């Protein structure tokens, strides 16, 4: 029997989406359907056990409420329940007025046991026994109820902890000597003095109950087979539930284990790599030291041999390409291009912060990527259109002077092979930047950028190809390098301080010098796709020029 089959057999069932909008009407807004509205109250799953659903009083109450639902006049029907009456005990005798409500909501974590004092509570029989004990004692050495209960509690708890299965295995009642040997901080000195008097009473009570606890206790599982069918066994431990695992739970936990494993693996990897790094550092130190010693020897040898010359061989020669490292200070702000607040301590203890900064950079990269793709998308979308409305959402490129400007990172490459140069260009994005004049290039903002400190702090450049193939470099955010005289002595002082490989060499070069810029511009011009891109353009320009020259002047151009 399929579900569809069952449903099909039903009368007038209609699917109703819970998302469907339903009009809310009053009775007079719908046509009267029937003379017997009762018949139209549908039968709905009650959630009550089927055998109980039919119970007389419940049925009476349900039909009463259903009759009421269709406008019938019925008194509310209550399901009869056994009586409760006011107790004959005097409430005030048992409970006292000691609650004062705090102004704030109560926070409370003590347990019932914490609030109950000694667990054992005296019976009337205990009272009789206690008074018989006290009869024989002097007035100064009487045992009060609290002491008595303290001792009884100690006996009970000790028996419970020493013979947890006394009920099952018929263990003999613990002797007094045994009890005494278990005295600990749970029983006070004053109570101990009564222990011997009370023990016989405890023992006899205990024997009478078959060495069971004197205060009746709940029946917990014993592991016996009868447990399952015994309605008095309750509050079973729940480990059993682990057996009933759904596939989902399995997958979940295996997933968790996998992740845990991977994380541990990662941590191990990390430690291994740290170790490797430290070993390499040690090696470097050793090599450095060796180098230093060798040089000292060379120096000595030179001196003794009277060889004059520069001290070139006594210092580390920078490999040529290291000169690029001058760009480093510029690169830092570039990496935080998102104008996220720079890590203020990022440089102070870089070692500790490697992870955090990695994460941050990665995040930034992701965001940047996202922004970039969005930009590209937007550009494509806007291709061929310029928004010329007032305060346009996507302002046309020209007025927005930011367009096409690049920070100056790529500009500091004095002598790189052209391939390297173009790679650096690639990093900075697509070549749309190079021909900013092209229609369709759009800049737009995601949030108001903090313009201050952005343009000023980083010098930026824009390269344009103007009419007739003219190359133009626009600069902005320029601050001329301080031209204060470089103290010769200071320079000299650090002359040999090159043990840090990362340290950039100091060149007395003005990067903003027009000459240098022109040079750099030409390097950019050589970059790969630039070349391809421009070849056609330039050729076209040349052709045009040639035609012009042919027409106007005999002098050969270019």
């Amino acid at each position: 029997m399929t579900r569809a089959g069952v449903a099909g057999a039903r009368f007038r069932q209609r699917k109703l989406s819970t998302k469907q909008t339903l009009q809310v009407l009053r009775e007079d807004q719908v046509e009267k359907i029937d003379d017997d509205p009762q018949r139209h109250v549908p039968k709905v799953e009650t959630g009550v056990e089927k055998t109980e659903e039919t119970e007389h009083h419940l049925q009476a109450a349900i039909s009463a409420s259903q009759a009421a639902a269709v406008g019938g006049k019925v008194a509310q029907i209550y399901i009869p329940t056994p009586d409760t009456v006011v107790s004959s005990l005097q409430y005030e005798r048992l409970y006292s007025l000691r609650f004062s409500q705090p102004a704030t909501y109560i926070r409370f974590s003590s347990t019932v046991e914490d609030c109950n004092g000694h667990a054992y509570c005296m019976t009337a029989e205990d009272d009789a026994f206690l008074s018989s004990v006290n009869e024989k004692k002097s007035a100064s050495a009487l045992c009060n109820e609290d002491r008595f209960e303290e001792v009884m509690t100690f006996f009970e708890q000790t028996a419970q902890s020493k013979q947890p299965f006394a009920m099952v295995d018929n263990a003999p009642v613990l002797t007094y000597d045994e009890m005494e040997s278990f005295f600990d901080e749970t029983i006070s000195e004053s109570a101990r003095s009564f222990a011997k008097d009370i023990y016989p009473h405890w023992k006899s009570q205990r024997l009478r109950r078959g060495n069971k606890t004197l205060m009746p206790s709940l029946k917990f599982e014993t592991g016996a087979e009868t447990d399952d069918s015994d309605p008095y066994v309750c509050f079973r431990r729940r480990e059993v539930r682990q057996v009933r695992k759904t596939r989902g739970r399995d997958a979940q936990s295996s997933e968790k284990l996998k992740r845990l494993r991977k994380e541990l693996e990662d941590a191990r990897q990390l430690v291994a790599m740290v170790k490797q790094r430290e070993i390499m550092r040690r090696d470097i130190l050793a090599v450095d030291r060796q180098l230093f010693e060798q040089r000292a020897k060379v120096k000595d040898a030179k001196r003794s041999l009277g060889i004059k010359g520069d001290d070139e061989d006594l210092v580390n020669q920078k490999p040529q390409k290291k000169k690029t490292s001058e760009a480093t200070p510029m690169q830092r702000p570039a990496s935080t291009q998102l104008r996220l607040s720079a890590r203020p301590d990022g440089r102070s203890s870089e070692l500790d912060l490697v992870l955090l900064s990695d994460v941050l950079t990665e995040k930034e990269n992701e965001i940047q990527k996202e922004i970039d793709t969005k930009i590209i998308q937007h550009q494509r979308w806007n291709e061929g259109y310029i928004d010329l409305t007032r305060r346009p959402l996507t302002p046309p490129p020209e007025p927005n002077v930011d367009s096409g400007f690049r920070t100056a990172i790529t500009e500091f490459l004095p002598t790189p092979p052209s391939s390297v140069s173009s790679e650096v260009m690639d990093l900075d994005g697509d070549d749309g930047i190079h021909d900013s004049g092209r229609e369709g290039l759009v800049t737009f903002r995601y949030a108001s950028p903090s313009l201050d400190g952005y343009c000023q702090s980083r010098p930026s450049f824009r390269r344009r190809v103007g009419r007739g193939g003219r190359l133009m470099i626009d600069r902005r955010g320029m601050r001329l390098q301080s031209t204060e005289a470089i103290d010769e002595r200071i320079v000299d002082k650090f002359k040999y301080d090159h043990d840090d490989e990362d340290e950039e060499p100091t060149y007395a070069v003005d990067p903003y010098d027009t000459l240098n810029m022109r040079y750099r511009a030409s390097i950019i011009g050589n970059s790969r796709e630039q070349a391809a891109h421009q070849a056609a353009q330039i050729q076209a320009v040349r052709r045009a020029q040639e035609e012009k020259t042919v027409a106007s002047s005999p002098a050969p151009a270019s």
Partner: protein
Amino acid sequence: MAPRESSQDPVGTPDPVEKGFATLATLRIGVKAFVDKDGEKRKAEILSIQQRKGQPYYYVHYEEFNKRLDEWIQAERIDLSKEVEWPAPEKPEKKKTGTTQSKNSKADSKVPKGQKRPRPGTSSEASATPEATSANIPGKAPRPSKAGGKENSESIAVVQTEVLDGSTRLDDEEIDLEDVQDAAAAAKAAAPETFSREEEIEKLRTSGSMTQNQTEISRVRNLTRIQMGAHEIEPWYFSPYPIEYTEEDMMYICEFCLSYFGELRQFERHRAKCTLLHPPGNEIYRDDYISFFEIDGRRQRTYCRNLCLISKLFLDHKTLYYDVDPFLFYCMCTRDEYGCHLVGYFSKEKDSAEGYNLACILTLPQHQRKGFGRLLMAFSYELSKREGKLGSPEKPLSDLGLLGYRAYWQETVIDILMEGRSEVTVEELSALSAMTTNDVLHTLQNLNMLRYTKGQHVIVLTDAVVAAKEKQKEKEKLKKRHNIDPERLQWKPPVFTAASRTWNW
């Protein structure tokens, strides 16, 4: 819900009943006789027989009455001038397990959650052994509970807008249907039993003994009376308090820590020592009428066990089979200078796979019919709102639970609809009330407010509903109605690790 002709299990045919006249001597457990109940004769089943001071006492369950009305009676109330029904011969073991298993296997997915037990209805194989049975069912793996909360998951509902055939029932829960099928299959698989006449007689003789079946113990209320706070209360159902207390005429329960004592002297001693003045947890709600305390079953094991024991006295479907650890208990109290008096509580799974926002709910009998149940329900939905979830109470509901919930749902849905919107989706109603869409639909259907007219479903605010609302407003003018004020709830949904939900320690 219309009374069905037969209260038999949906599967299996009713066994022919053997009738005859009985004498006091031949009355035994399982016999159904007519008993004088409040001046009328009702058929009742004898569940237990005891001798007290030489007189036999009979514990009877009245047919079609809730178990809470079961009682001990003396012989003179039994009408022996009418024929009695003899207990059916012990059904062939296998067949019987076939039918009960289907119930139990459904129960199986519930029992470990520890708060509700399914009641296999007329079967006397009460719920005590649900664990053991699931493994034996031929070809049937225990059905995993639908993850993700089946209570919440359905967005398309099949609704009956008009049912012409009054006897059809809408089993919109697939699980029910399949269970019936499984049961049928299991019953079929069992070999047909044939009994010789002799065997049958022998069966009759032995099965009708006076000794009680272990599992039948729980069908008989075991405590006579309890004293709690300023009240004496008659228990309704069995509760597994230590068996020693069943012999006492009165069991004393401390109103604040819910500890129990068989002797007044002991109870007095306890009261002298007990310092608790409110449920041992954090107060998460307070207004000028009530306070709510949130208590973690794992951290307050003793209190929560005590609470479960006492509530088992009044909740038939509750099971104390498993421990209280995976539950939170929300205790509602009234306050005075004596302390915070527990009037009711509900428990809630820390993480309910079924999307339940409440497991068991109880207003203590001495405080019933004062509107506390409504506040408990409202509070449970307030928590769901704070969690951003929809919720529904765990099933099965008790009769009182059903009536209470229906009243609350009706009031809630109608209140929203009366705010004056001209159209609404079931989902919106659901989101506003934290009720599941199913409960919203059922409520609308129950009030006959969901109609199908001119080719589309509409919600009709019926005259009856509007009139009832007006009447209620009038009443409220005279007597203040208490509501839960969300502003006063200081609560964030607690977060638990998987381990703390599952493991004991």
